[in-house]
């Protein structure tokens, strides 16, 4: 068993004993199992998969483990029931609009970031449906 802590600047998003954690690192996706070698790595925006059955959308951050504990520090972390599909859809529409109409590079970059984040959120929501239908 691994003791997992996902911490954001606002709060501890999740603290639980888990079997395995899959996270998006800068080098590609990595999975941490118990007795993993001491590791410290940088994470990119994406989805964390936690066994048993849980998904979280995260912002960029860091992951640290010593084989018994995993500390994940990220800028944001949302569970599946914390994201509203309609709002995310709306955010995507708006971000798309801004990307096409942005006047300067900076604005466009920000909109692209938002778009990227919203896509990750949507992906997360689709995962939930998949689980529900399979049960």
């Amino acid at each position: 068993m691994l003791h997992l802590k996902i911490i954001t600047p606002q709060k501890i998003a999740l603290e639980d004993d888990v079997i395995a954690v899959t996270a998006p690192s800068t080098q590609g996706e990595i999975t941490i199992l118990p007795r993993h070698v001491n590791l410290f790595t940088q994470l990119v925006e994406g989805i964390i998969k936690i066994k048993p059955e849980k998904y979280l959308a995260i912002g960029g951050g860091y992951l640290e483990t010593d084989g018994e504990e995993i500390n994940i520090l990220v800028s944001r972390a949302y569970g599946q029931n914390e994201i509203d599909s309609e709002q995310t859809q709306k955010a995507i529409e708006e971000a798309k609009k801004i990307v096409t109409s942005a006047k300067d590079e900076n604005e466009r970059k920000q909109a692209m970031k938002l778009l990227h984040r919203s896509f990750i959120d949507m992906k997360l929501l689709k995962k939930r449906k998949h689980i529900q239908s399979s049960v």
Partner: protein
Amino acid sequence: MNLRQVRKKTKSIRNVKKITKAMQLVSAVKMKKAQQLEVEGRPYRDTLTAIIEKLVSNMDTAWSRLFGTPLAENEKKATRKLIVLISSNKGLCGAFHVNLYRFLLRTKVDFLNADFVAAGTKGVQFVSRMRGKILADFSNSKFLNSVSAIFSFVLEGYLRGDYESVSIVYNKYLSAFRSEAVEETLLPFEWKKEEIEEKVLALEYYIEPSPKKIIEPLLKSYLEERIRGAIISSEAVEHAARMMAMKSATDNASDIIYNLTLIGNRLRQEKITNELLDMVTAKESVEVN
């Protein structure tokens, strides 16, 4: 004072009391929120610090420019200091600002040899009174939203080689009734190796992508988090201080109202007695004649 004046005064103080009471309640709510933020954000900062301590043993100070003092283009070592001063925009919060000012004066900050980055108009006012130089003022928006702006501003100035060191001065939150003005050095980045446990130092870490690549973003997010922590802490202190100040103001108002009511009653009594005396003497003089 005559009776009418006393009554008027009592009424106005009653109004003041209502206002201070309302401010006290508002501050209490805000303090709760700020405290919660401070407490819930603590694990993130603590874990980040712990991680950095663990990784220290694998680090080479040459890997990042954040460790030493960078040189300016003319290869001269900078002597100026950059100070980030966190205060607030509003007054009426007791000793909150005074503590901060007193701290700056006590530590003998050389105002002529330091540049300031301020969040909070009160800090700006104080620094300009002391003839210090304000480089940037982040008072206008919510402080927490300008954390990354403050950080990138500070970092830019530092990497340009303009400053010997960068520190942050703020009121640190200890408990609801205790706070302390502190100065913490942000840059150059330092740690005390002696303070880290040997057990931690002995741990070997496999670092991805590579220690060299990870050190800068890690230190940057750590420093940014320090600034954010300072602002949250300062906000909690501000609201706590305001609540206390308003509580004592309300108490004082109650005292004054109590005393004024006594005076007013006495004056009223006096007036009645005088009127009675008038009537009695008038009656007696009529009867004698």
